[in-house]
């Protein structure tokens, strides 16, 4: 029997390291050299097929720029199953920022969250300021997944998302703390649906 698992994935990292570009490459296999700061579409989904039996659907949350002045809402971290923390290999300071985002995740997110540290702009290795060894060592110390990617060429992008998909729990609901294995598993009420069996507006009192 085939199954589809759904997970919430959040992106983090300093402005302009290529968070949105990475997602755009992953979701639509596109790249735009002069992409403006994120506007308009900050809720994307993409499915990764692991084998004949299993597909993993990522519900991807972009920061929508709220990271710029450290104003991300607790809602952003809530029930996140995995996080991609991005730095720019040509900017040493962006790795420092990534470290602080990882500390923030360890503080705010569920302890079971899967974190991938992602060195983007690998196509610009001529201007590299962050060595592979340094980033890899840090990732190992913190127990994070790590890879270098290029949203521009596509290098490593599919691979890192697939690796995350494989690392996520394939059986039990992903998070002990109310994480949503899939929208279909939502237990609450659906506002977009009218009540079943209760005819529309102006329904008289039942008394």
């Amino acid at each position: 029997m085939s199954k589809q698992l759904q997970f919430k994935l959040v992106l983090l990292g300093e402005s302009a390291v290529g968070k949105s570009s990475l997602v755009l490459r992953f979701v639509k296999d596109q790249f735009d050299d002069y992409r403006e700061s994120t506007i308009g579409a900050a809720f994307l989904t993409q499915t990764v097929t692991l084998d004949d039996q299993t597909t993993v659907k990522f519900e991807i949350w972009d920061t929508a720029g709220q990271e710029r002045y450290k104003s991300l809402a607790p809602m952003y971290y809530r029930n996140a199953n995995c996080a991609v923390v991005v730095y720019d290999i040509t900017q040493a300071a962006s790795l420092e920022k990534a470290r602080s985002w990882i500390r923030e995740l360890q503080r705010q997110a569920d302890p079971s969250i899967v974190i991938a540290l992602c060195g983007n702009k690998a196509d610009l290795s001529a201007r590299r300021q962050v060595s592979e060894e340094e980033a890899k060592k840090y990732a190992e110390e913190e127990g994070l997944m790590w890879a270098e990617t290029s949203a521009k060429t596509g290098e490593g992008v599919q691979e890192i998302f697939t690796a995350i998909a494989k690392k996520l729990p394939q059986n039990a609901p992903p998070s002990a703390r109310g994480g949503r294995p899939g929208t279909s598993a939502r237990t609450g009420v659906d506002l977009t649906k009218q009540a079943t069996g209760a005819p529309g507006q102006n329904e008289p009192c039942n008394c």
Partner: protein
Amino acid sequence: MDEEYDVIVLGTGLTECILSGLLSVEGKKVLHMDRNDYYGGDSASLNLTQLYRKFRPDQTPAAELGRDRDYAVDLIPKFIIASGELTRILVHTDVTRYLEFKQIAGSFVYRDGKISKVPSTEMEAVKSPLMGLFEKRRAKKFFEFLQGWKDEDPATHQGIDLDKDTMKVVYEKFGLEPGTQDFIGHAMALYLDDDYKTKPARPAYERIVLYTSSMARYGKSPYIYPLYGLGELPQAFARLSAIYGGTYMLDKPIDEIVTDASGKFVGVRSGNETVKAKAVVGDPSYFGAGKPIEGGKLRVVEEGKVIRAICFLKHPIPGTDDADSAQIIIPQNQVGRRNDIYIAMVSSTHNVCAKDVYVAIVSTIVETDRPEQEILPGLQLLGTIHDKFVSVSSFYAPTSGGESDQIFITRSYDATSHFETVVDDVQNVWKRIIGKDLVLKKREVELEA
């Protein structure tokens, strides 16, 4: 901070965040700031650390309460009425995708010393101790009248003119007893006092219809509630704003509203930086609420005070069938007051506190100089209160519409039990800023790969 904005929004309460979201979708360039390091302003939900910082700065949270992050304690006690305007805005703007809702399990009303469930089905109504047998028949006729009302069909009016006749006249026509009137006017139409009885009946009719249609929607009570607390609502609208280009700055002290010689808004000063914008929107606390006026302009006036007691319980409220959440209304007549006392209770089912903890907020509009005495009838219904955080807060309204100086001030959160007056304020402020009625547009469909 060197850019110029269309609108600066001050305070991240729900009213401001809905406005910010809608303004951003409309294409306005918005800068949204808050002096606090958390979202929500007066409508925030706080974790234990934040709650103690606010109420007991000299103490640390009691360890036996459990993990800090399991708590999201609402500062204002409100629920979402299922068929109301806030629900419509949530659905139209599609922010429902960031939120998850649960029903509130029960709605209760206090009468003659005990509480009873507000009937939600015919079966419950027949069994309800709220009315005697004959009164039930009279009430049935009354509800049939409301249910059958059609503006265009005079045959359904039974001689009543909703726009001229008072609610008192309507009650008398059906011969309803004072106790039944209390229950209908306060537990269903959700009036806080009895002033409505001497006014034309239409608003009361509309409120009863809102209540009953909300009740019919999900069954157990007319209310729904967002998991992780009401503070999720402003966060969701802030995200909507950010997605449409809104800029967010928390933890930003606001030192001055800068105006030109004619008093027109120029910008907002924080420290020695001034950000310019065409207009400013904000909650009363950013415009002198609660501070002495020093030569400046009086921009907000106090309209009254609300007392709210946040109570931690280690058990459900007695008499509610162990409901995991409830509203209890104590109609003013029952306890010799002018304003109703409300109890709003939620629990770990709504991910707002540790397991086996129940958070009940008792509130009312202050009528005397001893407000804590006034909420005693509510506190007494709760059983043993494990801990209690009491606040008395003034509510403010702007002194002017803001069209002339481009300073648009929202209203404080009132004592009503749901968010409908918040939406009224959003619509009102929108019209003042934009000059047109708010028309909700459906958000574009997401990219689905």
